[in-house]
């Protein structure tokens, strides 16, 4: 028991919680940025502007099908070769935003596509322009359908911030490794703490989501 008490000493816990804060910070910034970019890209892909949409669509497919870890490596270790240098925090946010925007663009596109085409036809026939129909009629309905996949995407984003430990971002996993690196007896307590902290954040988010889902349906 004294092992546990030592492992979870206030100094260690505070050090971990500061890491959790970095994790949440990176997640929140990336979620906001990728929601904005993802929505714009998703709409561009849906609307089918000649040429532009095809290129945007292809780039989205490329990014979606790469491992996030590779994008992270590329941003932090590859880009400096062509003169773009970032510190770990900005590199993590940049890589996550690029990756997640592509994922969210696809969610937005299929959300809009899932809305019955009669809705747009109805909007046009009562005299709305295409953009009015999209904004006032189609998008709000699509939003409802997008909530569950969006939330699971946000949850995987939070989990994926742990990958940034490799570019020495001092987030939760990184700090746990430092603590058990000093004393292997702290290993199991640290992994339990990691599991609990990630679980609480992600599960709480999924509870909020299912609450939202019930309210909107």
């Amino acid at each position, binding site marked *: 028991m004294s092992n546990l008490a030592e492992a979870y000493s206030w100094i260690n816990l505070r050090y971990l919680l500061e890491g959790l804060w970095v994790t949440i910070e990176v997640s929140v910034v990336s979620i906001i940025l990728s929601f904005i970019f993802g929505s714009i890209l998703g709409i561009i892909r849906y609307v089918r502007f000649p040429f532009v949409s095809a290129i945007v669509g292809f780039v989205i*497919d*490329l990014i979606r099908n790469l*491992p996030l870890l590779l994008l992270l*490596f*590329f941003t932090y*270790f590859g880009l400096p*070769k062509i003169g773009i240098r970032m510190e770990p925090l900005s590199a993590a946010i940049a890589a996550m935003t690029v990756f997640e925007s592509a994922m969210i663009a696809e969610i937005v596109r299929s959300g809009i596509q899932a809305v019955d085409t009669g809705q747009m036809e109805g909007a046009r026939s009562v005299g709305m322009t295409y953009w009015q129909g999209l904004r006032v009629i189609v998008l709000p309905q699509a939003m409802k359908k997008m909530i569950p996949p969006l939330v699971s995407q946000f949850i995987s984003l939070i989990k994926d911030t742990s990958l940034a430990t490799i570019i020495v971002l001092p987030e939760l*996993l990184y700090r746990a490794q430092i603590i058990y690196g000093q004393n292997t007896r702290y290993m199991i307590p640290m*992994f339990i703490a990691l599991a609990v902290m*990630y679980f609480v954040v992600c599960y709480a988010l999924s509870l909020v989501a299912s609450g939202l889902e019930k309210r909107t349906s």
Partner: protein
Amino acid sequence: MINVFTQHWQELLLGFGNTLLCSVIALFFSLIIGSTFAIFEVLPYKVLHIIGRVYIEVFRNIPLLVIGMFFYVVVPQFFVTLDGFTAGTIGLTLYTSSFIAETVRAGIQAVDDGQMEGARANGLTFMQAMWHIILPQAFRYVIPPLGNQFINLVKNSSVLAFVAGFDLMYQGDAIASTTFDTFNTYIVVGILYLIITLPLSYYMRYLEKKLA
């Protein structure tokens, strides 16, 4: 860029093979584990239902990297020795099985209730009806989402790089750190990943449209 490939194609090919191998192994076992827990969730036993729910929620809400590192760092320290490839593949299997369980459960629940009622009315037991009537129909619904899970699995297998699993990402990283040509190496590694994932993702989109 071509230099990276011509000079290091052996390491890259080994990594490519390992990535495919661990993805296929993890898919196989996570299909078995995932389907089992999915059936737990639809069986009329409360205890099994709770076990299924807990398993799924635990492995869905903890980062894959934490699970993989647990098997690479903690398990060898206190229990049995595992090499990086095995530890990573076990982590991948457990993580993916929770997502597959959710997918299969949704597929089972998408099958019309009348199918089960009809089967039971014809004298089949619950398990017989599940096996012969419900699951075959459910698998048709879940093929596209399972395909997408496999794509995620291939991408997620890159965490083997953290645990010395000699996968594509690990080899790429090793090449990058010896040649210092990080920019081009990562692009080559990316192209190799896309060779697996991109055709699969287009095929799944086509299947989704066809089955919808």
